[in-house]
């Protein structure tokens, strides 16, 4: 099946954080990197980008099947079914399932593309494959 997902090119990332700002603003109405579904981490001489690859590992550990792929292959969380156990957060191989204490449920990238538009260097883009 086709899967829509973010891809990254860390060599282009300048660490400006505009992706985090755009994402958290869109989904939580605040400018807060801790509430962004994409993360930038400054490393010694490069910037690490944490993104969800829509691999589906989270779906496999969810006890309520609250995580499901939509028609674009994007793994989405149905908050109503989520019991807030955070096993998905613990088992995500990319550390891309996010958790913040203000929220009962975790949150993840839904490949919406808002961060790719905010990114000034093209370090982030959306593809379908």
């Amino acid at each position, binding site marked *: 099946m086709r899967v829509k997902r973010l891809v990254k090119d860390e060599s282009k990332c300048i660490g400006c954080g505009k992706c985090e700002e755009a994402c958290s603003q869109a989904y939580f109405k605040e400018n807060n990197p801790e509430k962004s579904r994409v993360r930038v981490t400054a490393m010694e001489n490069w910037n690490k980008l944490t993104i969800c690859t829509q691999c589906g590992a989270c779906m*496999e*550990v*969810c*006890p*309520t*099947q609250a995580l499901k792929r939509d028609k674009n292959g994007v793994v989405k969380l149905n908050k*109503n079914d989520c*019991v*807030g*156990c*955070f*096993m998905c*957060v*613990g*088992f995500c191989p990319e550390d891309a399932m996010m*958790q913040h*204490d203000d929220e*009962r449920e975790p949150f993840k990238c839904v490949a919406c593309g808002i961060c790719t538009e905010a990114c000034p260097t093209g370090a982030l883009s959306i593809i379908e494959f």
Partner: protein
Amino acid sequence: MENKEMRNKHKILMEYKYEPKSLKHGYTDKMLYVNVGDNRIEEKDIPEEVKEKFIGGKGYGMRYLWDAVNPDTKWDSEENEIVMSAGPIAGITQYPGTGKTLVCSISPMTDIPIDSNVGGYVGPYLKFSGWDGLEIQGKAKEDVIIVIDGIEGKITIETAPEESVDGHLLGEQLTEMYAKDEHEKRQISVITAGTAAEHTRMGILNFSFYDIRRKVARLKQAGRGGLGTVLRNKKVKGVVVKSKPVKGDLNNPFDQSIINKTGIKLHKEIANHDHEQNNMHKIGTAALIDTMIEFDLLPVHNFQYGTHKDAVKMGNKVFINKYLTQGMVDGCWYGCSLACAKAVDDFELKTGPYKGHKVVIDGPEYENAAGLGANCGIFNPETILELNFYCDTYGIDTISYGTSTAFAMECFERGIINKEITGGLELKFGNEEASLELIHQMSKGEGFGKVVGQGIHRMKKIFAEEHGADPDFLFDIGTEQKGLEYAEYVCKESLAQQGGFGFTNKGPQHDEAWLIVMDMVNNQIPTFEDKAEALHYYPMFRTWFGLLGLCKLPWNDIVPEGNAKTDEPAKIPEHVQNYLDLYYGITGKTITPEDMVRQSEKVYNFQRVFNIRMGKGLRANDKSPYRMMGPVTKEEYESRQERYDSQLKEKVGVDPEGKSTEEKIKILREYRYDQYEQLTDAVYKRRGWSNNGVPTKEKLQDLGMDLPEVLEVIEKHL
């Protein structure tokens, strides 16, 4: 009959409407009391003093049971109660192993209080429905169910004439009956027993949880002590608990963030390391089978031996590769990433009333494989699985069944009983058909199955009185203590584990102390004082979990990086801190590891005095049958001759040269009895008990448990 039709035949005997109280810091402070004899439903406020001293879980169980019964109460008296409670931490979803309930009653096996530990969703769902615990007292006139609807705020006692009794059917029927649709099934948890619980003393309670992938009600067990027998004696078929949808903060914790952080930390630890350690995710507790074989600790032929040439046929790889479904989400409460509740799917049963049916089998846990299988000389995994299934649905304790059957088989092999007595059953070790026949007899209440279902304690009496067996030999090989069968570990060479079993409040169950490797393999506790210290710390620490609603497997079946470098790796200090953090997160109270032990000691000593009150809490009751202490027979001695001969030489100071096996057995036996007595002295001293095993007034005062009713009991013995 369709579920709908069955429900229409219910008569509502009593209905109680209430406003479900929300949890605050892990508690509602309300106990639900249901009397099925006179159809009374009452709400009790749990006093602050009870909460402070008893915490929850087994603590509440023991407190409320004490108040319900008197020293003459028997398991089938009207006033006997089944009390169940989870505990303040139960019901959080973020940390593995937080859904456990402790169930207490006067046991049909031991005549003293039993406390039994069980997963599934009942405990948390009772809490979310407004109840820190449930008491069931009295005896109904006809089969009833109790329905606790935490969404509507309604409790009913209803007749349930048409529903099945067997666990796997009743679990499905009641789940479907009380859920408005498929999606709501996950909000239902059911307690059942089974048909064999009506004809044996070793009945269990099944606590269900709905498996949404398999679309089936899975069963976890409160296995030890005969709770299912009590339930069926009360003519209660089942209990249904229906909860509102689950969220991670229903306990209204004091500090949610520390709970979140600690939970995610452990999920990551398990994700990264479980496969390198015990592999619980893939095989569950059956992972222990290979280890026990390696150390010569797997019970074979009623604990005579520690391994068998065919043991490999039931080894780990067989279960992982051939039977256990991989890749499912197998926690028995939300958030358990250790997920040891493995199952076998689409297993076609070969015998019994459900022959030909394809079923889901919950298990096998290690105890099932060891008890139903190896201890009985059975190494066929499919027979083990079939026995596992029938034990669950018929409502029988797999440990008591396995050990009792092993005992009966040894008696048959030695000519103590014969085919005339067994009604034609060739009860030799390894006879799979015979074991399966026994279990079906237990369900039907006929044949020799009824005798085995009485348990070893009563079988010894029957065989001596009715069949002229030598009572001393039966005492030696009768692998029970206080009336309860031993759990599946060959502790012959581990004095510490003999004590671990022998001093346990409920009877020889391994929940209190599992010291066998630390002692026998690692020799980490060589002196009496070392052993006594371990037999103080570990039982107190391990039973703390049962006050809080916690499973102890995530404490030590997974260890964090760097654990080996700590001072006491066996205590898993980082995990101990996790539990202190969870306790703080829920209650807002900061406690230390010493406080944990103290909280547990209070309830532990109360339970010990309760045992004394009911007739079995003294030194004489803590003794062990010799089969669990050393070689009873020539064959046993000779199977470990090198070990025993060198012990005679080095520890006893006797030269084995030129002595017959019988003479050597006698000498070794005297030595080991003396060792056990010395251990008993050391343990009682460390625990603050008199030389007769009675908690002293000073100890009780120190713990704040010098309650008048407690002192009244001990005064007679001091």
